[in-house]
């Protein structure tokens, strides 16, 4: 673990530990009351979920068309982050919806496409774990499909009629709500950077172990 990773993890951990107090100080929303405070974890995890999918897709494209194996390690790490932060998004969202909408889930464009992209990355990880030789390139193709779906998830709330709030909500937030939101976002973003870097490093180490085993067999 590098010094930067340690700093990122320490800062992210401290910020996440302090986040309940920061969120507690935020005012209640007029119509939803207390339950809207799930938003302070839901929104950052959702954005990092999409960021992870973008990183995984771009790194996969570079690996697929450029043959850079190092990029494959980053793609795998980013796919794991996508599944991790996607799980947070897909669990915190319905818990909020149960109170705000009266139901845990609706099959609208935003929720359904988010679930599908999350399942694409779960399938990617399963493929990479059990797929055997060639699964890296097949997985890269899947990650490209995940990347192509990200703009669809983003604009879906503005194009189709849905219960989910539109993307115009964030810029209109008052400072008293925006401050804790960006505090939580920064904490989760630092966590994402640290974990992404560590997971990519683990994958490079595994590659090196495989090379050493092969060299041992040949000798």
């Amino acid at each position, binding site marked *: 673990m590098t010094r930067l990773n340690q700093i990122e993890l320490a800062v992210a951990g401290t910020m*996440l530990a302090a986040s309940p107090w920061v969120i507690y100080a935020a005012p209640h929303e007029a119509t939803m*009351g207390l339950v809207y405070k799930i938003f302070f974890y839901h929104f950052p995890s959702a954005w990092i979920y999409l960021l992870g999918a973008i990183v995984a897709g771009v790194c996969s494209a570079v690996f697929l068309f450029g043959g850079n194996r190092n990029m494959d390690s980053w793609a795998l790490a980013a796919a794991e982050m996508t599944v991790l932060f996607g799980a947070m998004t897909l669990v915190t969202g319905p818990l909020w919806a149960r109170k705000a909408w009266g139901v845990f889930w609706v099959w609208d464009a935003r929720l359904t496409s988010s679930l599908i992209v999350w399942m694409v990355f779960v399938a990617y990880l399963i493929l990479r774990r059990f797929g055997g030789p060639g699964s890296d390139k097949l997985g890269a193709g899947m990650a490209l499909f995940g990347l192509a779906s990200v703009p669809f998830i983003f604009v879906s709330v503005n194009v189709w009629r849905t219960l989910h709030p539109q993307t115009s909500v964030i810029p209109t937030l008052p400072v008293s709500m925006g401050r804790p939101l960006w505090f939580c976002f920064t904490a989760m973003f630092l966590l994402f950077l640290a974990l992404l870097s560590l997971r990519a490093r683990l994958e490079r180490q595994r590659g090196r172990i495989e090379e050493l085993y092969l060299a041992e067999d040949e000798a």
Partner: protein
Amino acid sequence: MRFCRALLCVVALLAVPGVVAAQPQPSPDEFVPVTEVPPEEQIPAINLIGAAYGFVWIVVVGYVWSLGRRMQKAEADLAALERKAR
């Protein structure tokens, strides 16, 4: 024949109350709000917030722990193989 027609009329007359009763009731013209939500329908917001935050924390701590274990194992394997290769 006449008897059959009379019998049909009696059966039809007897069926009228049953058919009328089976008709769906007309719906009210406007939304009728409930004055009190049954207790089983009420979910305190704090439970949902606790579940959401708790889930996020468990996932983060669990993942960091899992990643740490995997990294320790990989580093140990790598060190052992490099010692062997020398």
